């Protein structure tokens, strides 16, 4: 390796600059590949945030375009997945949330067991096996119930229950206090269960 003394100042600078460029390019490629590796998960959540497949695809493309543009603002060694989801949820909010249905203000059942109890009651004369109760619900019932959740609740339910983020990651992604994450999560899950319980009972 050359020492500084044996190298012309000018060539030292340009060599340094070239090395820096090469390092930059390598870091950028690594960043882009790591981000692309998470794209399935980003799409999975985006599809449930957006009303249609087309909207979801646009949202994911915007997310990655912005991520690639601003890759330098990502701190290596921190949580890339959370960083990407923050871009996704921010873009989703910017996209202009359509007018929300008034949240379903049916009084929420006190008990966390109410879905179980309701389904069990309705199935009392049939097979009391609780596993068969969930089988009465279709995949589409769950998709519809989730789509009907008020958006603030749905964001949290998606991040924690679908994307497996911790309460604390979800709080950072959405820029809300952790206590708010917990209350929206619990309330969102209960509303979801309420909708699905109604559906299951109707279909029994």
């Amino acid at each position: 390796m050359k020492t500084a003394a044996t190298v012309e100042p000018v060539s030292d600078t340009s060599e340094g600059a070239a090395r820096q460029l090469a390092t930059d390019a390598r870091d950028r490629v690594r960043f882009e590949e790591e981000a692309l590796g998470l794209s399935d998960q980003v799409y999975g959540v985006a599809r449930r945030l957006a009303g249609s497949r087309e909207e979801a695809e646009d949202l994911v493309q915007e997310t990655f375009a912005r991520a690639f543009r601003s890759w330098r603002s990502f701190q290596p060694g921190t949580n890339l997945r959370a960083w990407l989801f923050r871009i996704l949820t921010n873009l989703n909010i910017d996209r202009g949330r359509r007018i929300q249905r008034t949240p379903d203000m049916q009084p929420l059942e006190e008990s966390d067991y109410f879905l179980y109890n309701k389904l069990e009651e309705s199935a009392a004369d049939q097979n009391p096996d609780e596993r068969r109760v969930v089988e009465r619900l279709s995949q589409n019932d769950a998709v519809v119930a989730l789509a009907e959740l008020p958006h603030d609740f749905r964001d949290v339910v998606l991040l924690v229950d679908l994307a497996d983020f911790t309460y604390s990651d979800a709080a950072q992604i959405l820029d809300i206090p952790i206590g708010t994450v917990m209350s929206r999560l619990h309330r969102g899950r209960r509303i979801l269960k309420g909708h699905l319980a109604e559906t299951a009972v109707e279909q029994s």
Partner: protein
Amino acid sequence: MSGFAFDPCDKCEQMMQPYLDRVLTDVELAEAESHLDGCDYCARRYRFEEDFRRFVRQAVAVPMPPELKEKLRALRTPL
């Protein structure tokens, strides 16, 4: 079961969401598990909740369209 102040099943129900989210402290976890070991009522309801969560998760999952993956690859910075 000294940690249960009143109805042990009420206390157990309150622990269900944090239990399934794996955010109970070690002490609370031991408390919940010792109750679940002896209480069929709560054990069935925990199992139901777990099944229900799994059902929703699987029901709403969607695979990434392959064309979209290609479009995302095209967004990479050219070398």
